[in-house]
């Protein structure tokens, strides 16, 4: 408080020449800053306006495409066996939901993706901890995992069918295997990148090994784990699509393959829409999780 009040007084007491020098310097910075600030202000205002207008524009262009598509279908330019019309798709979606066909299949698919992903996360975290926390563990676990990483998981479908038959097991196993890799890779990298100074601090505070893992290692590697999780979620949908289309008697993929036999492009498109929505929603969920768990980061949380 006192500092602030006394400062201008000392400036006035100073010799005139220095004061003018200070004033011109100040004026120059002001002059330099002013256009920059105006530009920044404009940019900020400009950025805000489109962000409100943009979704609308996008909305309109999408609507336009849908309208053209619908018109082409109604005019008979596109046969329903090639591509069903938007209205037809909406009607089919409604019917599928009302008859319970879609919810049932969706539930099955969600169950497969969910259990596969859960296994992937558990196994991925366990392996990453083993590899990240001990030299021996790294030697034993990391090399096979790196090899597994180069393998396209989808190429394992025939083998998995031979091993596990055509029940739920091969599908869940495929999702689990594909989704585990990014969890493992990112988390083990994150654990190895923990600041050794923090680990040392833990020692001087007398933390036990378990406490170090709980308070320092895992939270420190959490950003990497979440990055891995986002990849994993994407991969688990990809695995699911393939697994359900190769052999299944239930699930969204099966519903679509079934529709193929009857040339029902409307059902196939409903399936595609569902997949797209699932991908979008799960990504959103991970992002929200990220924002909550990483709120200690000034950028992510906007704290201060």
């Amino acid at each position, binding site marked *: 408080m006192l500092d602030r009040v006394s400062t201008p007084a000392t400036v006035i007491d100073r010799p005139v020449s220095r004061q003018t020098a200070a004033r011109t310097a100040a004026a120059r910075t002001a002059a330099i800053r002013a256009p920059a600030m105006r530009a920044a202000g404009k940019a900020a205002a400009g950025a805000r306006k489109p962000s409100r207008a943009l979704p609308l524009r996008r909305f309109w262009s999408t609507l336009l495409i849908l309208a053209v598509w619908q018109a082409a279908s109604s005019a008979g330019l596109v046969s329903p066996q090639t591509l069903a019309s938007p209205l037809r798709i909406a009607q089919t979606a409604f019917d599928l939901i009302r008859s319970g066909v879609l919810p049932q299949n969706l539930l099955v698919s969600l169950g497969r993706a969910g259990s596969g992903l859960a296994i992937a996360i558990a196994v991925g975290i366990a392996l990453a901890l083993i590899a990240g926390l001990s030299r021996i563990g790294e030697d034993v676990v990391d090399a096979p995992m790196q090899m597994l990483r180069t393998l396209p998981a989808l190429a394992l479908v025939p083998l998995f069918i031979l091993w596990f038959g055509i029940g739920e097991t091969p599908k869940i196993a495929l999702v689990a295997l594909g989704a585990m890799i990014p969890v493992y890779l990112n988390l083990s990298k994150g654990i190895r990148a923990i600041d050794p*100074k923090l680990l040392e601090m833990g020692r001087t*505070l007398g933390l036990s090994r378990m406490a170090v893992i709980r308070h320092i290692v895992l*939270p*420190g590697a959490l950003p990497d784990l979440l990055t891995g999780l986002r990849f994993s979620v994407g991969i688990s949908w990809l695995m699911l699509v393939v697994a359900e289309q190769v052999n299944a008697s239930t699930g969204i993929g099966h519903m679509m393959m079934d529709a193929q036999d009857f040339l029902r492009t409307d059902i196939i498109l409903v399936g595609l829409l569902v997949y797209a929505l699932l991908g979008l929603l799960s990504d959103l969920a991970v992002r929200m999780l990220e924002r909550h768990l990483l*709120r200690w980061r*000034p950028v992510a949380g906007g*704290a201060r």
Partner: protein
Amino acid sequence: MSGGVLVEGLGRAFGGNRVLDGLDLQIRPGEFVALLGRSGSGKTTLLRTLAGLDPVEEGAVSVPDQVAVVFQESRLLPWKRVRDNVMLGLDGADAGARAEAALGEVGLAHRVDAWPLTLSGGEAQRVGIARALVRAPHLLMLDEPFASLDALTRLRMHALVERLWRKHGCAVLLVTHDVDEALTLGDRAVVLDRGRIRTVLPLEMERPRRHDADFARGRQVLLEALDVGEAV
């Protein structure tokens, strides 16, 4: 009393580089020792050895069982709020209350719920001090804790550390490059050179220290011990 430090013939080498070489040092319980020395003279190595972070390769070291360290960088866990950082490793139902009390002592009662990355350098360092003091250490070691702070903040920190030291009565080993800091805070200034203690300067001026003739004489002695005496 278990509060003192005794170092006898401590030696440490990295490869062929002898960093500590037959070092003897004694710190009485409750004594404030300022440790000076040129860069690379082994100050941090000594402190790390006393903290149990580096092994004792030669000689013998005895330290109290409650030792706390404050480093130059505050080393707070960014994912824990300030209070939880201070509480780390404490047990007991009153840990939270003790942490808050310690933060109050360093003038940060209003920041207990803040995230460490939102603190200023001086605030972060004060949290580090609170985290050390909440453990009621018999020996508090600080490795250039104020080196990256601005001059004004550093002066405030000196006053804070002196007040807390008097209140808690722990022995303090303060590593610093700042001769005035050593003269302001220390009961004794110790200069490390080529792995040994070459100069010991007892500082018996009354506290709070004033920049008087004794202070100037002390500064001259220390600067000479640091081989910059002639330049001044």
